């Protein structure tokens, strides 16, 4: 512990469409802010070093690892977590297809996997299989063997409501 005084950081950001303003410790990761302070436990903690993608969220339209983002860095940004993609109580078509095609087994990678796919489909509504694989290369799944996940994403193309 350093003797120096630690000044809290003040951040204003949009989380799943809602404006938020809060103060937090500067060494807090976005991942911990979401899970511990905001109770959004859909974002999972896996490796904590940016390799597994379980903590993936969308920041300003791009998929990022929330374990590699500090609270201060989200000031003025827009964050979307897995809790933010269902609309009016209905699952997002990507979520529906993950269920339909058996892409969920233990479920730990699923939120990150869906958000990586979501970020891809927002900029590229009709990706080919290679592009899908590239988009989820940073999301590890140890259950499915990926095939069902790729199938689910393939069948979610041309969805533009994201």
């Amino acid at each position, binding site marked *: 512990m350093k003797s*120096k005084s630690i000044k809290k*950081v003040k951040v204003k950001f949009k989380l799943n469409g809602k404006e938020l303003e809060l103060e937090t410790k500067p*060494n807090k*990761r976005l991942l911990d802010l979401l899970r511990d302070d905001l109770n959004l436990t859909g974002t999972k903690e896996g490796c904590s070093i*940016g390799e597994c993608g379980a903590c993936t969220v969308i920041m300003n339209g791009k998929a990022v690892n929330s374990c*590699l983002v*500090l609270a201060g860095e989200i000031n003025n940004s827009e964050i979307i977590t897995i809790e933010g993609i269902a609309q009016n109580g209905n699952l997002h078509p990507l979520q529906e297809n993950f269920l339909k095609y058996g892409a969920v087994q233990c479920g730990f990678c699923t939120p990150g996997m869906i958000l990586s796919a979501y*970020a891809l489909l927002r900029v590229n509504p009709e990706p080919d299989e290679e592009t899908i694989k590239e988009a989820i*290369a940073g999301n590890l799944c140890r259950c499915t063997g990926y095939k069902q996940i790729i199938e689910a994403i393939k069948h979610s193309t041309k969805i533009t409501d994201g």
Partner: protein
Amino acid sequence: MNPEFNYIAPLNLNSALKILSASKSRAKILAGGTDIIPGFHIGSKRFSSTELLIDIKRIRGLDTIKEYKNFVEIGACVTFSQLSESEIIRKYFPLLAKAAETIGSVQIRNRATVVGNFVNNAPCADSVPPLLVYDAKIQIQSLNRKREISLQKFLIKSYTTALKKNEIVTKILIPKPEPELKGDFYKLGRRRAVAISRISLAVLMKTKNSLIEEIRIASGAVTPIGTRLYELEKFARGKAANSDTFKELSIQLGKKVLEITGLRWSSEYKLPVLQQTFYQLLEKVSRDEI
């Protein structure tokens, strides 16, 4: 658990430099954070004395790629995603675009910066071999001085650079290469995605009348830092651009790397693979050329 530190995100370079110079080496510059944040988390000694993070991402003008008549400028906060999507980079520096595409994952590339890649100066920094063959220079600023230095000179040894405590790297300057220089970048990792390089190579070559007129070779991961192999280049210039020369160059490269690193447990695997991939790279580049 992260150590305790303060965080500040200045809006212009001058305030960032002022804060840095007042902080007496307790501060670190934060750009993409893909090295420093997991570094904190695993308790890396490289970052343990950090008391203040100065986030430079709010500073205007550092996140752009600009084309000038003879060179291209890449700002300190340009990410690998920006790099690989840039028309300018793809057109003039295809090896750099290729390296950028192979780094980490989408999530990493959306955050990690190319400048951070070499300021950190890990042996496996994938952008370094391409930047070296393109003769990249970097611009460094402190409160009262602006200087330019070649990237090769900036990189001193693993995790050590010529950057002083009160300085910030603000941009990369790369001269547009002559169009006759053709090349390729090769990376070998343990798997395809999110892999740390074991071997990386960048080659640019220009042939005339079937002779090697110009060649630039740089290695990464197999050498302690990204390195231009000037002796090997000198040896190659003027020789016939054919398989015999490429074989000879590959043997020489193996010898050179062995000389730099010494015999390691991995040498038995790495050296022949390095030689073979280098040979294939030279063949491929020369075929594209002819």
